[in-house]
């Protein structure tokens, strides 16, 4: 108990802050911060597995998040029958061609000795394959994008409940991570960082511009929800009764029946959105807790010890007969899969998929700030980092506004400096993140909750 005192203290302070937001701003804001904190926590857990357990640097978090989001679209949206009729065959054919190319290349790689001719042959196969695929797929893509472009213009998905996409998102991200890991994990740390950063940009470029698959920058809106809709809730009896019971103290003070009814309506409307957010919080909390249990178990297992050994001294671990390359690949895939889950969760909670909104600053660098600030190698630290940094990211603007008003209190309201500063309040969050990261790295390089490994 005493050993964990700092963990408990840190988490209580964090929850206290969120509750304070609930009391002073509104419970709606508090809950939406809390939900995004939970999603960020999942992302940081993924990054922490890679960086904290194994020392692998992954700046491609944005790409894995987007793939998770794509999974949400492909699983939950109803299939667009017309589009399938128009160009489905071409797309399927191209898919087979891609598989064929991969198989042929593998065959060539296996069958023939390493030589210059083999390299040229492989290059020729790939290039001619791409040209054939373009000829096969182009009419199909055109036909699909022409099907009702204002509303669909893409193939749609499978029409399954969106919850499934959380698992599928993990597989998508894991699959991409497998490919990246296969080719790039041998690179030096800083090269790996740059390579993953750029690969994630390529992923985003594809998601943005392949309209037949993702609708691209036209966005997919109105995704299915695992939680009830506010409008439906406001008309169900049990919910109205629940709200009435909850607010009976305030309602009893109002004697006039009509006024009481309108007050109740107000409470129902507010309550419904809070209820929906609570549903999401519950779902997310389940994911976070399951992941936390699994990652904690992994950390203290022989496998976890092996990972730390590899991280701290690769050569020694190699000499002890551990397959460093294989373990690196495994952990890269696992961590990225967790990030993929988070990506699907994010799209689920927003109810829309906007490829244009994936920016490296928000989805890669901010997550890294969370990992470093929270404490790499420590799962509780990583989750706390997600909470603290997301909370500050959202609350930086109000805090900034308060600070600006405080420091410029002597100036008139129309003074140009004050106006300018108030306009630029949203950018104080960057300043806060940067200074926070620099201070933590300088004075507490292991994070708020440092890694602590006790031998049991």
């Amino acid at each position, binding site marked *: 108990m005493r050993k964990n005192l700092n963990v408990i203290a840190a988490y209580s302070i964090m929850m206290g802050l969120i509750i304070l937001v609930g009391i002073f701003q509104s419970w709606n804001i508090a809950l939406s911060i809390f939900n995004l904190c939970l999603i960020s926590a999942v992302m940081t857990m993924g990054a922490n597995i890679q960086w904290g357990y194994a020392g692998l640097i992954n700046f491609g978090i944005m790409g894995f998040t987007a793939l998770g989001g794509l999974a949400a679209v492909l699983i939950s949206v109803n299939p667009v029958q017309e589009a399938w009729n128009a160009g489905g065959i071409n797309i399927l054919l191209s898919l087979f061609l891609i598989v064929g190319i991969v198989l042929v290349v593998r065959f060539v790689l296996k069958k023939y000795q390493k030589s210059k001719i083999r390299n040229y042959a492989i290059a020729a196969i790939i290039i001619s394959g791409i040209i054939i695929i373009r000829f096969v797929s182009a009419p199909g893509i055109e036909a699909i994008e022409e099907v009702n472009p204002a509303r669909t213009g893409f193939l749609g998905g499978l029409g399954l409940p969106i919850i499934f996409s959380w698992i599928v998102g993990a597989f998508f991200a894991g699959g991409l991570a497998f490919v990246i890991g296969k080719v790039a994990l041998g690179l030096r740390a800083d090269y790996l960082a740059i390579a993953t950063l750029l690969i994630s940009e390529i992923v985003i470029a594809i998601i943005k511009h392949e309209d037949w698959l993702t609708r691209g920058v036209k966005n997919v809106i109105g995704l299915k929800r695992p939680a009830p809709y506010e409008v439906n809730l406001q008309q169900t009896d049990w919910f109205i009764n629940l709200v009435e019971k909850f607010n009976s103290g305030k309602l009893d003070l109002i004697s006039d029946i009509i006024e009481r009814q309108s007050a109740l309506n107000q409470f129902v409307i507010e309550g419904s959105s809070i209820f929906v957010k609570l549903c999401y919080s519950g779902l997310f909390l389940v994911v976070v807790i399951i992941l936390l249990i699994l990652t904690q178990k992994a950390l203290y297992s022989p496998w976890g010890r092996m990972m730390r050994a590899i991280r701290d001294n690769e050569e020694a671990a190699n000499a002890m007969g551990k397959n460093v390359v294989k373990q690196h690949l495994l952990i890269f895939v696992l961590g990225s899969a967790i990030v993929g889950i988070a990506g699907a969760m994010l799209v689920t909670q927003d109810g829309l998929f906007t490829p244009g909104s994936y920016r490296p600053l928000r989805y890669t660098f901010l997550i890294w700030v969370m990992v470093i600030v929270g404490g790499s190698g420590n799962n509780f630290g990583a989750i706390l980092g997600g909470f603290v940094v997301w909370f500050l990211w959202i609350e930086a603007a109000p805090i900034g506004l308060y600070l600006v008003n405080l420091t410029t209190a002597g100036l008139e309201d129309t003074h140009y400096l004050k106006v300018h500063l108030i306009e630029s309040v949203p950018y104080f969050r960057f300043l806060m993140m*940067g200074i926070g990261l620099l201070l933590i790295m300088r004075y507490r390089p292991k994070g708020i909750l440092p890694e602590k490994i006790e031998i049991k």
Partner: protein
Amino acid sequence: MDIVNALILLLNYIFVPALTYGSQLAIGAIFVTLIYGILRFANFATGDMMSFGTMVAIFFTWYFQSLGLSLGFLPTALIAIPFGILFMGLYMLIIDKFVFKYYRLNKSPPVQLAMVSIGVMFVTQAVVRIIIGPSDRRFFDGEKFLIRASEFKDITGLNEGLAIKSTQVITIVVTIILVSILFWFLNKTKTGKSMRAYSDNEDLALLSGIDPKKVVMITWMIAAILATTGGVLYGLDKSFKPFTYFNNMLPIFAAAIVGGIGNPFGAFLGGYVIAFSEILLTYAYKKFFMYVLPENLEPDGLIQLLSTDYKFAVSFSILVIVLLYRPSGIFKGKTL
């Protein structure tokens, strides 16, 4: 005649724009490579440092414009560049003193320094956005075109016009001057040689009496020159927007690594490799083939290898391929 038309077409839409864009990338790539070679970390704040220098230069440009100062047909921003460099260098030295120095003296691993540079990136981004705001700024003045497309057509009597913007010429000329001075400095002067020695083998350089503080300071000063000039040239040619500058960091990194990171000459060529491949692969060759081929062979489609949406993706793919097959870059040779 058709052949000449086709060549002018390529010159107008591929060669001149790619040369300009390549020069802008090359300056940034040399900046990245210098920091990597001498201070030994990948500087993720590259794009934002460039936007900081450009911001200062823009303020001075506006100030000079309000004074009525101008260079005639050249943009006023050219006189503002030295002031931008001054402030940029000051900012970099301050950042170095309070942030990077600690890790350098502790001999931290490069990854940690890269992380720290992310912190610097956030701070610089905030500073730029708080001071000048996130919106698009144009600060170009003076003559816009050297040759207009219509004038060119009138003079030569060809079907295709060749338009050369003055910013394109300025970019290319300034890049050539800057880069030749830099290479002269690194290869011929004593300070430059000591920098190269420091980059090659730090301990040996210290042993032979090279002052590390001086080397670091000069590196930052050169970095300031490169960052500000590169940023201003890009801003003159396109426009200044902090977000674009942040994004430019990615092709710049690609150029630096393609050329072999730590090798300034490689970085210089890498910039052009990236720029030319981006533009060559995404240009629609339909018109070109219409001129070159006989009429019955004229193509139906656009003859575009990749849609322009994938411009960035091209350079990143090149980078990934280079990283996988030749991690030391395509232009091997001595570093720095």
